[in-house]
């Protein structure tokens, strides 16, 4: 087969989740390379959106056939567009673009991610109780998540969101915020954090405080340590999680290879791969936790 040059651009690992995403991206590339020696991967990593635009330009200069981008945010659309218009096979993932400048868009479901989780939480609490939130860094995904849970909880008159503060996707920040919440609110029923790193920080603060009012801690995105807790039942405060699988970063590699070669999945009767693939957010509980446990992830 004809050699294929695939460029892969991701944001840098500034949070635990991104580290796992990069792990899967690399795994995806390594697996394909082992299968098919004619594929060359060029992987780049950006600390900010401007650097990502530069990265994509550099990849185009190196004459790639396909481009996989996890955009920092939708503002890189215009640069992705250059690649797309130049006839490069473009796969965009996760945080979307503002125009259709891709052949395939593959993503997790941010809204579903929060809705599934918050509905589970509401149900566990019998639709009654007070919740505190810990958000990530202010950015579009964070806004989606925060607004979704606010909307979900608003459906239930017995429930109230007491507060929502930014924990920057960081364990230590979330811990400090939780310490402050515990001073401020004498009764909290559950804690929702926008991802697992922050949930672990908040949990630690709660345990250190010696209080006994909180019933549930819910994060998301299946940190391996959290999944282990759920599997083992070692932490009664943590009983569920929602998937936001970072292995999408490996999946897109296959999508790009097939797409760039004009192929489709086996048994897929359409001429082309689907333009939009949205991965469902699944609720993880003790029953199904084992399926989501990847001990090799960072």
């Amino acid at each position, binding site marked *: 087969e004809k050699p294929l040059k695939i460029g892969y651009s991701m944001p*840098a*690992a500034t949070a635990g989740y991104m580290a796992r995403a*990069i792990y899967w991206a690399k795994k995806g590339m390594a697996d394909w390379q082992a299968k098919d020696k004619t594929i060359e991967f*060029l*992987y*780049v*990593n950006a*600390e*900010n*959106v*401007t*650097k990502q*635009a*530069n*990265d994509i*330009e*550099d*990849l185009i*200069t*190196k004459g790639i056939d396909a481009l996989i981008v996890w955009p*920092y*945010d*939708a*503002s*890189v*659309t*215009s*640069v992705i567009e250059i690649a797309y218009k130049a006839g490069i096979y473009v796969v965009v993932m996760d945080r979307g673009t*503002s125009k259709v400048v891709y052949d395939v868009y593959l993503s997790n479901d941010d809204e579903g991610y929060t809705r599934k989780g918050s509905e589970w939480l509401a149900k566990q609490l019998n639709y009654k109780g007070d919740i505190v939130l810990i958000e990530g*860094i*202010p*950015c*579009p995904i*964070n*806004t989606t998540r925060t607004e979704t849970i606010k909307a979900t909880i608003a459906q239930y008159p017995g429930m109230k969101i007491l507060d929502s503060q930014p924990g920057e996707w960081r364990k230590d920040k979330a811990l400090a915020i939780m310490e402050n919440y515990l001073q401020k609110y004498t009764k909290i029923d559950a804690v929702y954090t926008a991802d697992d790193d922050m949930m672990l920080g908040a949990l630690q603060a709660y345990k250190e405080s010696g209080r006994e009012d909180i019933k549930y801690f819910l994060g998301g995105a299946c940190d391996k340590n959290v999944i282990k807790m759920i599997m083992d039942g070692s932490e009664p405060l943590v009983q569920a999680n929602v998937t936001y699988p970072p292995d999408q970063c490996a999946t897109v590699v296959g999508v790009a290879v097939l797409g760039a070669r004009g192929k489709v999945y086996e048994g897929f009767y359409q001429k082309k791969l689907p333009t939009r693939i949205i991965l469902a957010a699944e609720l993880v509980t003790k029953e199904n936790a084992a399926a989501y446990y990847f001990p090799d992830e960072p």
Partner: protein
Amino acid sequence: MIKAVIARVKKFQYEKYAVFIALAVLFIISALLSPYFTRIQNLLNILRQVSYVGIIALGMTFVITSGGIDLSVGSLMAFIGAVGILTLNYLMGVFNNEYLAISGAILAALIMGILSGALNGFLITRGRIAPFIVTLGSMAIFRSLSLYMASAGEIRSVSGHYGEFGMNSIWFLPVPVLVMLIIAAILNTILNSTRYGRHLCAVGSNPLVALFSAINVNRIKFLSYVLCGFTVSVSAVLLTSRFNAVSTSNTGMGFELDAITAVIIGGTPFTGGRGAIWGTIVGVIILGIINNMLNMLGISPYLQGTVKGLVIIGAVYLQRQKS
């Protein structure tokens, strides 16, 4: 005696051109390491990629020469970008001429840049607060205000033409590169051939002596921050035009560190009193080449920081002065 003169001349030239030598060394190494590096398109890419930080670094050179520092440039960039695009979108509804709207938005952005710089300058000179603190504070404030304007999301322009000029090339030079070079030429002249430039160095070197020499120290400092704000706004207009959008949470992130680094690599001392405009340009280009090479060579993302750190230290080591 003649010997002494020759020695003097030699030393002088080495110091003056050290940064260019560092650039040449880096260029040659890069050319040897990657076949893509010397392609015209790649070199033009590098130039355009660095031009946004480059333009800011030019203003920063003035601020650092005056003995100050401006940490707010990155956030200010997002803020001005947001103001510019919001104005554009608003004006698109008011005027029926798109170009008029674009001009209005650019004007608004430039004015905003000047005002924001003036605010920094005012607090530093009139308020007598350390530049580090003032601009650290305004860094937080500008970012926060831009996040607030769009709930941390991006603001897209509704104009189809706004995105054009930022991507155009004139003859073969991309517009932002051209703008950077023009501003550099102007600022270089100001720094070396005008009264303001002289006074700037004097203020940066020893404000007390400058005061004794009947120089209006506060005015000189104030203007350097205004200028810096202006360059940020120029850069913001070009960058938002490139994206035809601004990301309030991301745009300009970390630019302050890049700009300061470029200025210092370029030979302007951190303590002020002297400034090297062309040195700054070389400084940003060095940073650009490093980033480009990291991509071209496909170095592990985890180890890129190590390579980058080593090259920056190495580039400055090459041009360190004899004791």
